[in-house]
């Protein structure tokens, strides 16, 4: 049974136990019991969409439950703080340190806006739908799923559930560029769900997920298409760059059936090297074999947060209102 619905201990479980280990190669993990579980009446969650770690080492969770959209934990899963009651469509969560101060960027798919806030929830910038663009006649067409902030402060917004454009703004929220859109071409998207700045190479670039295509697309910061990484069978949510690796929550797998999620971890060459909860990644030359779930550890993982200890946190969408899962790297 998936951890979003635990199996009960039976007499068999009293036999000498074996800690569950998931993942492959150098990226193997044990799964912590009941991390971050809170009182469901006082601090409920609905969909747990995304998580980040701030400069103080705290773990920040974004949920679309308006009792407490933002839940702040320490790394042990103890509650530190909560805030936010005005984000019914809270979806994307990014953190950017500006001049020594952390800021959060929250996308709301129901309010069709993006917000920059302080760490205690004060709004400092609101980005509405890009009404200046001919492609956006109505705010309902703008359903932003993710943001990424470049070194120069430019804000990239992925409209993953709307018109599929990537819109680019300066630090003050002025629209300065846009690219992408829906379609089958290499520089177009089908569910541009997640976006991240990739600073691993000689020059920064963008990693953008085309989730329904099972692809990770690479663009220059000016929107010029570079290349595509095919991850067949992996419906990837958003890329998280940490060190030389990219971590991606894979919300569905195989043929895209429900409750078939796992985690994808890429190396510095963007090859899949570990799939906790999934089949061992296998390549024939440059071609990855079709990926699928083999262990029912996760239902619908939606994000991966990697902390400074190399441990990871997995929030889940549509998983029975469960709190995030923590994986300890071994």
């Amino acid at each position: 049974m998936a951890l979003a619905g635990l199996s009960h201990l039976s007499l068999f479980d009293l036999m000498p136990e074996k800690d569950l280990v998931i993942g492959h190669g150098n990226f193997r993990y044990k799964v912590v019991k009941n991390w971050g579980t809170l009182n469901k009446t006082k601090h409920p969650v609905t969909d747990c969409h995304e998580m980040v770690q701030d400069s103080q080492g705290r773990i920040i969770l974004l949920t679309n439950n308006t009792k407490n959209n933002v839940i702040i934990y320490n790394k042990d899963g103890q509650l530190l703080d909560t805030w936010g009651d005005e984000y019914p469509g809270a979806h994307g969560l990014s953190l950017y340190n500006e001049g020594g101060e952390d800021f959060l960027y929250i996308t709301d798919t129901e309010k069709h806006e993006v917000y920059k806030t302080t760490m205690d929830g004060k709004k400092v910038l609101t980005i509405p739908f890009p009404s200046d663009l001919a492609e956006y006649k109505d705010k309902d067409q703008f359903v932003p799923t993710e943001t990424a902030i470049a070194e120069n402060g430019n804000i990239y917004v992925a409209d993953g559930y709307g018109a599929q454009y990537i819109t680019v703004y300066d630090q003050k929220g002025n629209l300065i560029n846009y690219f992408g859109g829906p379609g089958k071409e290499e520089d177009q998207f089908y569910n541009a769900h997640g976006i991240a700045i990739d600073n691993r190479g000689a020059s920064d670039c963008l990693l953008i997920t085309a989730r329904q295509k099972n692809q990770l697309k690479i663009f220059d910061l000016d929107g010029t298409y570079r290349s595509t990484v095919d991850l067949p069978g992996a419906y990837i949510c958003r890329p998280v760059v940490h060190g030389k690796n990219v971590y991606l929550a894979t919300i569905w797998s195989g043929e895209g059936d429900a409750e078939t999620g796992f985690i994808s971890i890429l190396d510095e060459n963007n090859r899949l090297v570990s799939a906790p909860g999934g089949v061992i990644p296998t390549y024939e030359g440059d071609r990855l074999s079709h990926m699928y779930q083999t262990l029912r550890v996760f239902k619908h993982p939606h994000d991966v947060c990697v902390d400074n200890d190399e441990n990871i946190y997995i929030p889940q969408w549509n998983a029975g209102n469960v709190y995030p899962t923590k994986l300890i790297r071994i």
Partner: protein
Amino acid sequence: MRVIIFGFLLLIIGCKVKHSTFYQTNQVQLTSPKVTVSQTFFEEETVIYFDQTEKGTKIYSVTDEKRDQFMNDSLIVKETQSYQFYSCGAGFTTSDTIPINVFKVDSKRIRKVKHSTPSDHYPGTTRCLNDQKKGSINFRDGNWMGFDQGEFSYSVELEKGQKVDGIVVSSLRDYGSWIFCPAKIIVALTDQNGVLHSFEETYAESNAQDARNGFEFSRIRINEMAPAKIKITVFPPAKIPEWHPGKGTTPWLFIDEIVLL
């Protein structure tokens, strides 16, 4: 002495269970094995392929005749068969089973075919109901005929002497697309003397818990005979059930194959 040793062992086990911070292997279920079939409807043989499972686990099958047969990478099948495959091993909880049905058919039997007109949006192909080609889980792949006007009828005339002892109607279940499986099937056979024989099967009401998209093979057993004509009438549920957002409306029926056994 044995009691002391046993008690000591229980103490160790108890301590270890009590302080375990992590989930245990036996608390996690394996995912059902990934299985692909070269041809669901075949004349000579078909091959069932098994993809890699979690390290240290194996795939087994259950049929009406045999239980818990270990599967290698592939399985050659030469007769109509229904399997349930599952994964187990390495201390994990055994997976749910996955049903796989394959059917041996004889495509030379049919002389003439007539059927209800499908929806303009999902017309399938001219021969898709007896081309032995299985539709995919995507009802838009061109291999399915879609019907949204209630019952569907299919009539065939057979070459003389062709024996039939069963009918299979292959349909799709996709509740999210308002597509439901047959609720009832009536088979009317006219023998060589013009006598009518009728068989009927009804099927369990669609349940929200069966929500996973998939294929349904509705089988109607008949007394073996050499009919001149066969008319098959497929009835979807009269109305979409109460638990569904489309409750009270007429469901879609999607069929990709009618098989004479």
